[in-house]
Structure formats: structure tokens, C-alpha cells
């Protein structure tokens, strides 16, 4: 099991937004969390990525276990090696080129030699189809290109789990097909992918399993 979410609850401003949520995902699986806006999809992804704390329950990513509350620094460090995240608005570092965005963490967080990291970053950009945009700054990229760079950046530390928040939000139908192909390739290579989306077609196209989320609960499939 790569991801195991066990009965987590998230409370925001005295309001429970995630209720006793449990699910899991195995190696090489693509899982979609589907639901309308405000159903809690992004909140769940942020809790798994260690960005926002949950109050009770546990999240286990490979061999790293998060329990409720503040995450200790050493746990966060191990977690981020295992989870990559692609945000809805990508959040590429605005002052760096696409290539720099990709090799920054391997060099500065994991001490990889700059030359090796840069060569690998180029290969990753090639793999997701934006090898020719390595020297471009984020504001010079289209929505689809920025998303691909963000995927390459998240994959640069070889995480077994990739989280993607609303990946189709900024894509036209042709680009959605490309993205689905990329995700298939990733899962085939053994990466587990969890996406949040309200796009049912895309969810069915790329995910082996779809969980329906409503008001912070998983809706039983009928």
C-alpha cells in the first residue's frame, strides 16, 4: 500500500469539513476524488501532503505515518520525499526558469550535484513534453505547459505518490487527452496518482477507481 487514509477529520473555524474519511491506494494505481466545489477534495489532498493539519485519524504514505496536529520537522522531511504535489494553479516559482524550478529541490534539499540534477530535469521536461521550454519563465508558459513543468518538478525527487489538484482546470480537450496519457505512463512506471477533479469524463478516462466526495464524506456508490 502506498497511501492509506484512516478515518481523518479536518476542522476549520470550528466547522468540521472532512468527516471520518478513509481510503487507500496501491502502487501504480490512479485514484480520482470527485465531487462538486466545496466538497473537500483539495482539503484532503493538502492533508495528505502535510500542508494543513487534520484533527484525528492517520495518513500513512509508504512508511511515513502522520497523526493529527502539527507535523514534526523530521517527519515532514521524510514525507515530502514520498509525496509530490501539483497545485491547481501550479505555483511555479515565478523568478526561475522552468528548468530551475525542476532541479531546485534535488540540489538544495537532497544534495544532488547540480550537473546531474539539471540533466535529469531536462529528461523529465522531455518526458512530460515540454523539453523545449526549459529556459522559459512561468509567465511565458501556457496553462498546459505550466502544468507539465509542475508535474516534472513534483517528480524530480522520485516520489512514489503524486497528488494533483484539479489538473484539467486550465486545459482544453486535446490537452486533457495528453494529460491522461502522461498519467497512464506514470502509473505504468509504478507511481501512484491521486487526482481531485469535478470532471467526470476525465476521472473515468484515467482513474481505475473513483471516489465521490460530498460535504466531506465519501458517498457510497450505487
Amino acid at each position: 500500500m502506498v497511501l492509506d487514509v484512516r478515518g481523518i477529520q479536518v476542522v476549520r473555524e470550528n466547522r468540521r469539513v472532512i468527516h471520518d474519511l478513509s481510503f487507500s491506494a496501491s502502487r501504480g494505481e490512479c485514484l480520482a476524488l470527485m465531487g462538486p466545489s466545496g466538497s473537500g477534495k483539495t482539503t484532503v489532498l493538502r492533508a495528505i501532503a502535510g500542508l494543513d493539519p487534520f484533527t484525528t485519524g492517520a495518513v500513512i504514505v509508504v512508511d511515513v505515518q502522520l497523526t493529527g496536529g502539527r507535523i514534526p520537522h523530521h517527519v515532514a522531511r521524510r514525507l515530502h520525499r514520498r509525496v509530490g504535489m501539483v497545485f491547481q494553479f501550479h505555483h511555479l516559482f515565478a523568478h526561475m526558469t522552468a528548468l530551475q524550478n525542476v532541479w531546485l529541490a534535488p540540489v538544495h534539499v537532497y544534495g544532488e550535484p547540480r550537473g546531474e540534477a539539471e540533466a535529469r530535469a531536462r529528461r523529465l521536461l522531455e518526458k512530460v513534453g515540454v523539453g523545449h521550454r526549459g529556459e522559459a519563465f512561468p509567465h511565458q508558459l501556457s496553462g498546459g505547459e505550466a502544468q507539465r513543468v509542475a508535474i516534472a518538478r513534483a517528480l524530480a525527487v522520485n516520489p512514489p505518490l503524486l497528488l494533483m489538484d484539479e489538473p484539467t482546470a486550465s486545459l482544453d480537450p486535446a490537452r486533457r487527452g495528453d494529460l491522461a496519457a502522461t498519467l497512464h505512463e506514470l502509473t505504468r512506471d509504478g507511481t501512484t496518482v491521486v487526482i481531485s477533479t469535478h470532471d467526470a469524463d476525465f476521472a473515468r478516462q484515467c482513474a481505475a477507481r473513483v471516489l465521490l466526495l460530498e460535504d466531506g464524506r465519501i458517498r457510497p456508490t450505487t
Partner: protein
Amino acid sequence: MKDAGRFAGLVVLVWLGAVPAVAQEPSETLRWGGDAEGGAPFVEADPNDPTRLVGFEVEIAQLLSNGLGRTPRFVQVGFTSLDAAAVRGDFDVGLSGIEDSPARRARLAVTIPYYEFREILTVREADAARYRTLADLRGRRVATLGSTLAYDLLIEAQGRHGVLPVTYEDDVHPYSDLALGRVDAVLLDDVLAERGVRRNPGLFNQPTSVGVGYYVGILAPANTQLRDRINEILREAMRDGRLEAIFRRWNMWDQHQPALYARLTNQTTELPPPQTTAQLTTWEAARRYLPALLNAAVITVVLSSLSMMLAIVVGVLIASGRVYGPAALRAVLTAWVEIIRGTPLLLQLFVLYFGLATVVQLPAFLAALIGLGLNYGAYESEIYRSALEAVPRGQLDAARTLGFNDRQTLLLVRGPQAFRLALAPMTNDFVALLKDSSLVSVITVVELTKQTSIFAANIGSWLVPGLMCAAMYLMLSLPLARLARRIERTWQRA
């Protein structure tokens, strides 16, 4: 908009009402200008009743008013602005230990002298045998007031004997700094020297005088009629002993005064020739002062650049502490920023240089650098703090999911992006600092504005020196603004 129009109308009405009120000052009043900061024996607030002024100038103003059948009314004017205020007509006559000089005679209506003073060299008692004359002070710092006869004498001695003139804005700190060892001698009027020695134990006045000068009254150049009336009153008071009585009351009467009064009352000669450097044409003076102005501009640039570097370091530290530090540190840093921003830079410079002198004697340039650096550091910190907080949350989230710790996020992601946001206001601050550096002249650093003011005082006009000074400031600030715009454009492209 309607309110704004109404307000503007009100302002115009008030102004129109105020102008005739000033112009139609009742002729029974004699407005006399002086600088009460000059202190006793000239003009100062009575220690027993600070609403009342005392000093020999106050008594001379009363004497003149009696002679003219008017009531004296004091007008406070900074010592270095007295000439300009006389030309503007801010007062009828200026009396404030004002020295006779060719520049004043050329530009103003000047009365006959009413007091003859000696320029006296004051040294520490231990140096009394070593430093008898200016020639003994080669390579030594000698303090004086800017734009005075003593300053001219020091500039001459700089060329001839290699003394190092240090100018002050007031006549109290030269003596306290002499006592502290910051300077090796002071050259000023015997009146000030006597007071300096009285107030600072351990100082000694050399008996030989270095030069002779005269105190005069100054009036607007067109006001020769009143000047002539005042001259008559002064001559009469010299004859009947009223002036002598005034100077005796202030312990200033000496053997030189009867001779001066005799010359002035027995002859029709208007004035004894003042001892000072020859009068130059404005353009000749501009040519001669240009190297000094360029040197002063270098001091302005070096001081401003070093201060800005210090301000940036201080600003970054304070901003980081306020964004990342614990609550107690944040409270301390907030208080520091508010104290620095809430008090005048001038006051901070005074405290650093003069206030702390008994604890630590900072050299003037270092005190100026620290004062400007700390002051601007507080402003910079606010720019950096708001720039740090303006970096989008998503950028920080992305850094966290990639495994960066707080320090790495600050150095690699948040800091560089904040720096771009801060660059434009930083450039503005640097240009402002370049101009604010003129304030350091109060702690004896002669920078561009101070040098210009000395130049202007010596030639009796601000026009050419002011234009030269403005041109130099523009030559310094315009390229800076251009450079900043270029960097901003480059980064926007990036």
C-alpha cells in the same frame, strides 16, 4: 471636489487677509531678528523666566527702539539664515553677533560696528604650551562655526599651515568636543571663547589674538534710511556711555572698545575695513569652490552608499525577525521600528554624536553612517516585511511540498521574490537618503549641502551655489533612478 474648492477658497481668503496684516505692521514696532539658540551673552531665554529674552543684543535692540520711538519685537531666525531673512524683510534689523564682512556690505545695509572682538585660539590646558598659534596645529583638527571670519582664517591656515578645519553649526559643541579630545583647538570670537572656557573646565584661551572682527547690525539693502538713523543712535550711545554700560553689564567691556568708539564718533568714516578674504565675482568664486563642492559630493555619495548598505542589512534582519521570530522578538523589533520612525533623524544624530560622547566617542563620519543606516534601516524593514508578506501563499506551499525548510524557502523562494517587489521603494529610499545625508552637517561632516551653504554665505548669494548644488544632486540621483528602472524592466521580462 466641492469641499476641496471651498477649502482652497478659504486658504486664499486667509492668505489675502494675512498679507496686508504683515505689510501693514504698525510702524511703532521695531522687528529685530536674532537667534536665541546663540545663547548668552548674545540672546537667550531668561533662565528665571523663559518667556523673556536677555542678552546684550536684547539691550541694544531696546536702546535702538527707544531712540526710534518704537517698541522692540523679537523675530527668531536661525543664525545662518539671518542674511537671507534681512533681504526678505523678515525683520527691520538683525542683531545676533553678526560679523562685518565685505559680502554683507555688498549685499545688505550694514550698521556701524558696535563691538570689536578678537579671534581667540582655545586649547586644552595640557596643550597650552604646544599649540600657541595656528602654525603649531599642522595636521590637527581645529573647530569653528561655518561661514564666519574664523572659518575664513582657518581655510587660509589650512593652505598655509596644514590645519584641518572642522565646522560646527553652533558655538557650544566645538568647546565640549575640545574637552572630549575630538578636536585639538577651537578658533572663535573671544566672547564665545570666554564662555567656552567657563563652561568646560580644563580649557585654556591663548592670549594672542589671531584676527580682529566687528559685530554689526544688518538691514535690507533698500533700508538705508533706517540704517542711517540707527547709526546716529549708536554713535550717540557710544558718546554718552549707554553702550559701554550695556557691555559692562555683560562683562564684555575691554580696552579695545573705547578706541573703536573714538574712531567712529570722531570721524565721519563709516566703517573700519573688515579683515577677511577678498571679495570675488560670483563666477570666479564658483570656479574656486568647484573642487571643494566636488569633494563634498564624493563624501555625500560614499556616506549615502555605505549608509544604504547598513540600512539594507538592518532592514533585512528586522524584517526577518518580524516575520519569522517569536512573539517577544517581534514585539521588541516593532517597538524599535516605531521609535526610530517616530523621532526625527536630526535628534538621533545629535544623540549618537553628542549625547553618547561621554560613553563612546564616535568619529563624526561613523556616527553619521550609523545614524543614517539605523534610521533608514527601520524604514527598509517595513518595505521588506510587506514585500515578504506579499509573496503569494502558493509559492510557499509549493516550497514546503518540495521539502524546503523555512531558511531555504526564505533564501531561495520568498527572499528573491520579495526583493523584486522591494526594489522600486528601495530606490526611492536611496534617493531620499542621498538628500537626507545633508542633515549630518550638524555633527560636523561637511557634505555637499553644507559646503554649498558655506560657499553661499561667503559670496552672499544662494543663486549660483544653489544651482550648482542642485545640479550635482541631480547628477547623482538621476542615474540611480534610471538604473533601478532598468533592473526592474529586466526582472519583469524575466
